[in-house]
């Protein structure tokens, strides 16, 4: 526990500061999301060493949740997906002249939820890690499978498309050395392919290059930003009083949704808005500029970012693209997340958790006075910003393994990612399939070997059987509910 204070060393404080500022900027800028930005700075963070490097990456991850609300409220352009719902009431509040109050409530809600989720993370992560020590290959296989099925259910509009992307990710993960026997597969004798596809190259391509290509066909965002003076940043007592219940509801909901695979922060913000529409005393005002529509979703998306750290830190399983980049960063720094992280690298584990507390305070102090500056960053024309993103992507992809093959992978992933967006396929399930693929393969083959070829060995233990049943139920549930809906419609 005393390792929590590792976050307070000058180097780690600086890493946290740089990470949270970068995160806020990424959150403000439409297009580049936290996962892409984290992949871009990976080469830089590796130089910092594991603790400072991961503190900086984590700072970008939750800083983006703070920044995303700024442009939602001031310009009606969400900086990232988790802030889409904030535009509904946030922008209307700004048009009513309450932009300052909305921004302050968003920052306070983010702070409250962020801090709560760190406390919950600090308590829950070691407990989950201890329970996971009893997990063998069969349990890990079942957990990974359950995660991917839930992910396909929750991502995008079409389950078939999400599932196809998950499988494509698993297939891409089979390129290179196989995880057990060492056989080289699907490399077609290409130099640099033996080590497999670089995760950084694929991520920078899918989330960086593809964004640049996609931004060229999208209409340019409005560039006028309302100026907000520091003294206008005080919500009225009435606004503060009305913000507290949605903030607390959003925090708890967001944290729980954050534990699930998929775009948890985005789903959490929508769920919170939906709940406010049902239970809020002022639900009739929602949609026309109610402070509840800012406080709830903004708390929810920040709490979800904290919740998403639990499966990563205690099980070594990332369920969102951003935590997948964090996992990749950890592996590059020779830190293996999972049940043994706390035992083997307590300073990294507690240092990162400690930095969440510090980062949340920094973000609150930064965001309130500098909100006008951050909002103006959103108006930098894409013709200046996007070329820089391309160069950064190339640097990140090349420096992962110092080979040109990875730059080719980045370019191919970028063009494929652009086509996927145009055809309504989400790239997130592909990235998670790519990350979880080797783990799934290794645990499946190990479980089969341990059970001497008996396929029943996959569900011989209670936890494994429970998770496989849950995965099977999650696979058929949408089809069953659609069938029931159709039958009840016919009955009417």
């Amino acid at each position, binding site marked *: 526990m005393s390792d929590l204070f590792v976050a307070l060393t000058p180097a780690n404080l600086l890493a946290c500061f740089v990470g949270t500022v970068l995160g806020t900027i990424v959150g403000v800028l439409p297009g580049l999301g936290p996962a892409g930005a984290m992949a871009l700075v990976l080469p830089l963070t590796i130089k910092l060493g594991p603790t400072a490097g991961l503190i900086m990456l984590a700072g970008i991850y939750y800083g983006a949740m703070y920044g995303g609300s700024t442009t939602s409220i001031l310009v009606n352009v969400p900086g990232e997906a988790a802030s889409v719902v904030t535009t509904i009431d946030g922008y209307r509040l700004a048009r009513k002249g309450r932009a300052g109050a909305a921004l302050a409530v968003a920052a306070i809600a983010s702070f409250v939820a962020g801090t709560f989720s760190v406390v919950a993370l600090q308590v829950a992560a070691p407990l989950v890690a201890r329970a996971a020590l009893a997990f063998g290959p069969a349990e890990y296989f079942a957990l990974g499978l359950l995660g991917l099925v839930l992910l396909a259910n929750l991502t995008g509009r079409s389950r078939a*498309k999400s599932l196809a992307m998950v499988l494509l990710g698993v*297939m891409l993960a089979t390129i290179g050395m196989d995880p057990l026997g060492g056989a080289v597969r699907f490399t077609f004798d290409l130099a640099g392919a033996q080590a497999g596809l670089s995760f950084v190259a694929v991520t920078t391509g899918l989330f960086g290059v593809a964004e640049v290509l996609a931004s060229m*066909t*999208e209409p340019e965002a409005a560039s006028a930003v309302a100026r907000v003076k520091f003294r206008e940043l005080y919500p009225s007592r009435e606004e503060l009083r009305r913000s507290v219940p949605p903030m607390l509801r959003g925090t708890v909901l967001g944290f729980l949704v954050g534990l699930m695979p998929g775009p948890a922060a985005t789903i959490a913000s929508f769920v919170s808005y939906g709940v406010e529409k049902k239970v809020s005393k002022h639900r009739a005002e929602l949609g026309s500029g109610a402070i509840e529509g800012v406080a709830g979703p903004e708390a929810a998306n920040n709490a979800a970012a904290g919740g998403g750290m639990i499966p990563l830190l205690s099980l070594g399983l990332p369920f969102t693209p951003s935590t997948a980049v964090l996992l990749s960063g950890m592996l590059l720094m020779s830190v293996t997340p999972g049940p043994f992280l706390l035992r083997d690298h307590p300073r990294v584990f507690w240092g990162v958790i400690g930095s969440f507390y510090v980062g949340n305070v920094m973000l609150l102090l930064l965001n309130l006075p500098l909100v006008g500056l951050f909002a103006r960053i959103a108006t930098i024309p894409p013709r*200046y910003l996007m070329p820089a993103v391309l160069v950064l992507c190339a640097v990140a992809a090349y420096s992962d393994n110092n080979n*040109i093959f990875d*730059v080719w992978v980045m370019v191919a992933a970028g063009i494929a990612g652009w086509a996927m967006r145009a055809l309504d396929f989400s790239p997130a399930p592909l990235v998670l399939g790519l990350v979880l693929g080797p783990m799934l393969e290794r645990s499946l083959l190990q479980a089969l070997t341990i059970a001497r070829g008996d*396929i029943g060995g996959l569900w011989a233990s209670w936890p494994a059987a429970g998770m496989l049943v849950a995965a099977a139920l999650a696979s058929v549930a949408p089809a069953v509910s659609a069938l029931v809906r159709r039958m009840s419609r016919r009955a009417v």
Partner: protein
Amino acid sequence: MGRDHWSAAGLALLAIGYLLAGRRYPLDTLATPGPGLVPLVAGVALLAVAIWLFITANRAGLADAATTGGLIEPAPRRAAGRPLVLAAALVIYAAVLPALGFVVSSFALVVVASRLIGAAGWWRPALLALGITGVSYLLFARWLGVPLP
């Protein structure tokens, strides 16, 4: 055939190609599974999902139209030609990077990209390219010691 039908057909072709390429890896037995097992399972699963997507493509299109009820107007989109040109520029960039090096190739890429994204004239793109390439070279290669091509 709609867009989703073509996507499903493309995915099915990909799955078949992957399965054919994966035939050379042995499956061995379930007790000592070989490197061909997971590629076989993943390839067959993708083929099945592609068929599912193909069958449900029509229904999904109709459901989308029904849920939005025409309320959500698609945003006006700009021409798709320029991203194609930038994609080609990126392919050329990767091809010339080993020969020309990071600084020269990236300078040219930034000039082309900023022109395609909407910068006017040549002076501004050239200055921008000089700034971006120079700063990233100094930051990564000089200061952080990251090797660049």
